[in-house]
């Protein structure tokens, strides 16, 4: 089938402001948006800048605004979009070129919530054991691939880029509710700031945007609850 792909192009070295360009490509209905973009870049216009890596929806490189919603170009089928496909870079980040945005501020916020296991105790001879129930407590937030679809769909983040954003809260949640982790109080302290979880206005754009179907708003609500009660609902040793 023939589809028209409208792409928001911007080369800050040449262009004054972003503009739209339209391409016509021949694709199968079961092709993905990234296949259409490949066709354009490889056979029509090599100047198009687009970032992708694994092409299987797990590396988080090719999140972009497709037909008005943040999605992964490698996970969205052409047949679900119709004859006209509009593609624009993620909102709220500086555009480096065309569909490639500067993700560094996003990763800085990710690092700010200590997204790693902290445990000072001497590890047992084998694994640090955990019951299936304890593992299930944070299962949903382990699915995050750091594509930034949620954070760049969030009006609170658009309004104030100092807001830590849904993705960083999801990553903090993954460790706060891990029974093996000991730094959950520090993480809660970080998210208790003015730019932390209290900036969330429950708009639910993040839930709609997440290509991994994470219930982002629920994770944020659970972090807030932990802050209000001062407990993460896991029995602490000592």
């Amino acid at each position, binding site marked *: 089938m023939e589809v028209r792909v409208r792409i928001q192009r911007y080369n800050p070295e040449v262009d004054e402001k972003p503009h739209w360009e339209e391409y016509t490509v021949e694709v199968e209905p079961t092709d993905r948006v990234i296949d259409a973009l490949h066709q354009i870049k490889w056979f029509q216009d090599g100047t198009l800048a687009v970032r992708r890596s694994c092409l299987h929806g797990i590396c988080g490189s090719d999140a972009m605004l497709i037909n008005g919603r943040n999605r992964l170009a490698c996970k969205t089928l052409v047949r679900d979009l119709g004859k006209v496909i509009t593609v624009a870079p993620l909102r709220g980040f500086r555009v480096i070129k065309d569909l490639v945005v500067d993700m560094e501020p996003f990763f800085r916020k990710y690092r700010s919530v200590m997204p790693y296991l902290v445990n000072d105790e001497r590890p047992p001879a084998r694994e640090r054991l955990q019951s299936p129930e304890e593992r299930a407590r944070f299962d949903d937030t382990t699915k995050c691939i750091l594509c930034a679809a949620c954070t760049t769909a969030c009006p609170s983040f658009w309004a104030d880029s100092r807001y830590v954003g849904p993705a960083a809260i999801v990553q903090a949640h993954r460790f706060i509710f891990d029974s093996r982790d*000991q730094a959950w109080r520090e993480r809660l302290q970080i998210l208790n700031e003015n730019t932390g979880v209290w900036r969330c206005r429950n708009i639910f754009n993040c839930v709609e945007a997440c290509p991994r179907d994470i219930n982002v708003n629920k994770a944020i609500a659970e972090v807030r609850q932990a802050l209000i009660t001062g407990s993460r609902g896991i029995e602490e040793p000592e």
Partner: protein
Amino acid sequence: MYPTTPRESGTFGARPRPAGGFELWSWYFMRISGAVLLLLAVFHLLWMHLVIGLDNITFETIVRRWTGPLGAFWRVYDLALLVFALTHGMNGARWVINDYVHRRGWNLGLKSALGVLYALLMLMGAYVIFTFQAPPTIVAP
């Protein structure tokens, strides 16, 4: 290398419990006051429109209400409405300023003005509620 004794660094888990802080309480207050306001405002609306009736809302009606046998109840009720509605609304406006005004000077200036307005309206309202007396022309029921 792993630390040789448990909890060697003493860094983690050493801080106080993470509850508390102004932003936390302001968020929590919004949930509570939102629920309280729903009851207060709905009752206020039903009472004024259905029980008293739209055409009967006059200065005299309010005077009689505040000075009548249930005067203390109505004054407390109106005070609660004032405190919750004003604080809830002003805190919402403070959030909006924090969200959208990023220049430090403007942010602080606007929030200071908001604080002054808040104090002024609160004092004026409370002053009236606490000190109001029926004018001699209107006889209390």
